[in-house]
């Protein structure tokens, strides 16, 4: 028994009162008398009402401007999320952002993914006195001890990777250290030297490799977040005051390096779950934004590699679990349900074959609920262009187009990316709309698939986590206007604008897709126009023609040519 343990054993001599009757008297449903009004009961409740608090948090977030759609597109996909299950032993566990493929990886804590997503650095917890940092491959192989803190007992971790994957930065109670991934070249880059008893913790390496941000935690206070150049120079405070009572913890750079997110919490133990929020500030310290409240302390969140979501720890009545925050929609979803999950780290997946010789440009975006889970999903139409170009080309057609793809970021965090070969060489982003053709709560995707020569062709797709697949026209269709096979609609005899495709909701709630083909059979724009209308309903993945109609009209038409003045061939009344 140590000397301190002997001191603490003297507490056993204190006679404890029997407080069970008082606990029963105060408990809900007690008939022994009114519950004693107690301010602190509210504090306890806050431990378990994170979900209630989220409404305000999301409301607050929505008051802020939405994050802009990145152009060019992100070059990193979101992989699995590693997190720690705090059972008898800490176990690093992997799970897909959608909740599938959950599997334990290795005993340890504080996981941090390498920039290439192939390796995890983590803290082994065999000894509380001298924890060490190790690395392991994403498949659990190649366990490699990297570093054990020598000398006086202390703490290391959490740690973060340099953007080139060659170094690690970690916090210790006596400073911020950088070392090579093989454990060599350990050097200190920052150490608190102020007048208070403080220490530098929670480092994060900027994506450009130049700067480390960290928190300064003190006894009875803290001094906010600081940044320092990797060579130890240019130390400056990012946010916070001098010896404040509110804690700023766990700063993490956004993937694009323009922002730092962090946990802001109360200094004392009083009601910390209610008080802890993830906030975000620009790299220059301006533009403070609150993102979500009701989060755990410390390294309790991670950016998604594409910068569009956060994974964070939330404590609740059943323990703690990992939740996902969609930064664009503000929606929060629960990822784990084990009640013992903390400290998420999100795996980056660099996109294959995309080097400096290939540029990804987002040409169109839309949002909807493609998988019908109630969460907003984001869709991008991306062109991959040979060479390093500016994506902002004001609508000009890229001549050196390499390929095209559709990328869906589901609200759950899952990403589906699929090559898209239906564009026939055109811009293919003129129409890119989510629409619920059958009213089942799951949106379909309408995409302009016109070639340069044939305008106004729209194809319809079913989108779900398994992929993107075209809807088909059921036999016999309505030849020659609507052909059996993939649902390619429109393409009138003069232009797409004279051959609109319309999704409409009828008065009885039923939904129809109407494809109008208009042909000018007169001598001038006023016509007359011959109009053929095909009306369809969606049944599963099949569009079934329910009626057809032929008529004649003068421009502007009044008998079924409602879209002459529209700028898009797809009139979406079903979104």
């Amino acid at each position, binding site marked *: 028994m140590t000397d301190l343990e002997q001191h603490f054993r003297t507490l056993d001599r204190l006679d404890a009162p029997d407080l*069970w009757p008082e606990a029963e008297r105060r408990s809900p449903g007690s008939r022994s008398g009114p519950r004693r009004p107690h301010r602190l009961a509210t504090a*306890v409740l806050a431990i378990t009402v994170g979900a209630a608090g989220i409404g305000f948090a999301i409301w607050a977030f929505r008051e802020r401007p939405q994050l802009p759609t990145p152009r060019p597109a992100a070059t990193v996909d979101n992989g699995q999320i590693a997190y720690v299950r705090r059972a008898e032993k800490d176990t690093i566990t992997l799970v897909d952002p959608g909740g599938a493929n959950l599997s334990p990886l290795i005993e340890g804590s504080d996981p941090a993914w390498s920039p290439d997503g192939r390796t995890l650095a983590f803290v082994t917890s065999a000894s509380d006195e001298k924890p060490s940092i190790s690395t392991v491959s994403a498949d659990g192989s190649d366990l490699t001890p990297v570093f054990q803190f020598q000398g006086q007992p*202390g703490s290391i971790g959490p740690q973060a990777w340099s953007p080139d994957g060659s170094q690690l930065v970690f916090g210790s109670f006596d400073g911020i250290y950088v070392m090579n991934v093989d454990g060599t070249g350990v050097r200190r880059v920052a150490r608190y030297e102020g007048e208070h008893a403080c*220490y530098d913790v929670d480092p994060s390496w900027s994506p450009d490799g130049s700067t480390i941000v960290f928190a300064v935690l003190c006894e009875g206070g803290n001094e906010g977040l600081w940044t320092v150049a990797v060579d130890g120079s240019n130390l400056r405070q990012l946010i916070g005051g001098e010896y404040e009572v509110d804690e700023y913890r766990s700063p993490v750079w956004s993937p694009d390096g323009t922002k730092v997110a962090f946990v802001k919490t109360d200094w004392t133990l009083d009601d910390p779950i209610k008080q802890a929020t993830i906030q975000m500030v620009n790299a220059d310290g301006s533009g403070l934004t609150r993102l979500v409240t009701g989060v755990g302390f410390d390294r309790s969140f991670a950016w998604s590699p594409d910068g569009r979501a956060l994974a964070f720890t939330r404590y609740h*009545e059943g323990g703690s679990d990992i939740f996902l925050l969609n930064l664009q929609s503000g929606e929060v979803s629960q990822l784990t349900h084990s009640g013992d999950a903390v400290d998420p780290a999100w795996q980056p997946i660099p996109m294959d074959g995309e080097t400096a010789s290939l540029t990804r440009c987002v040409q169109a975006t839309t949002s909807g609920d493609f998988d019908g889970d109630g969460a907003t999903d984001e869709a991008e139409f991306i062109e991959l262009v040979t060479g390093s170009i500016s994506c902002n080309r004001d609508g000009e057609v890229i001549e050196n187009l390499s390929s095209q793809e559709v990328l869906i970021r589901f609200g759950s965090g899952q990403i589906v990316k699929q090559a898209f070969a239906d564009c026939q060489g055109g811009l293919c982003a003129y129409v890119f709309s989510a629409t619920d053709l059958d009213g089942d709560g799951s949106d379909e995707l309408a995409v302009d698939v016109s070639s340069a020569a044939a305008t106004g062709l729209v194809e319809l797709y079913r989108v779900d986590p398994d992929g993107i697949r075209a809807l088909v026209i059921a036999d016999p269709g309505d030849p020659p206007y609507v052909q059996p096979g993939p649902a390619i609609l429109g393409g009138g005899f003069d232009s797409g604008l004279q051959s609109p495709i319309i999704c409409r909701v009828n008065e009885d709630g039923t939904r129809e897709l109407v494809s109008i083909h208009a042909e000018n059979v007169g001598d001038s724009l006023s016509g007359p126009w011959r109009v053929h209308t095909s009306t369809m309903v969606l049944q599963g993945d099949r569009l079934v023609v329910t009626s057809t109609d032929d008529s004649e009209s003068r421009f502007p038409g009044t008998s079924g040519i409602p879209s002459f003045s529209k700028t898009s061939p797809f009139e979406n009344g079903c979104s």
Partner: protein
Amino acid sequence: MQDALVTAGRGLEQLYRDDGARLWRALVAFSGDREVASDAVAEAFAQAIGRGSNLRNPQRWVWRAAFRIAAGELKDRGRFRPPVADPSYEMEEPSARLVAGLSRLSPNQRAALVLHYYAGYPTKEIAEIIGSSPATVRVHLSQGRKRLRRILEEQE
């Protein structure tokens, strides 16, 4: 629902009989105040009874709630540090010396030391109780024990 609460209540009473005194003493060490400790224990168990079978780990939940209630009570009283116990009042001298020494530490250090050296919790469980990470708890323990040793040596 009411049956579940009754069943859970019986389990919680057993938890109180097994662990209540230890929790109370830990809170006395943390707060330096018997009244704060008693109030926190009673309120934490009362809240646990209200939650019935929804608590996945009642013991950890009660400890967590009780420490936060005690910390909140100290803050509410406008004293971030507990009163230095009078050795001649209420406590035997060795306990009073310890509590007096703890009172000179930060709340996080105090909680970490009490939970580790008295209650015997490992760092990861301390982290859950005080809402922190194991790494931070290790820092609190490292700094706190150095300082407490120095304080206790000064008292001798």
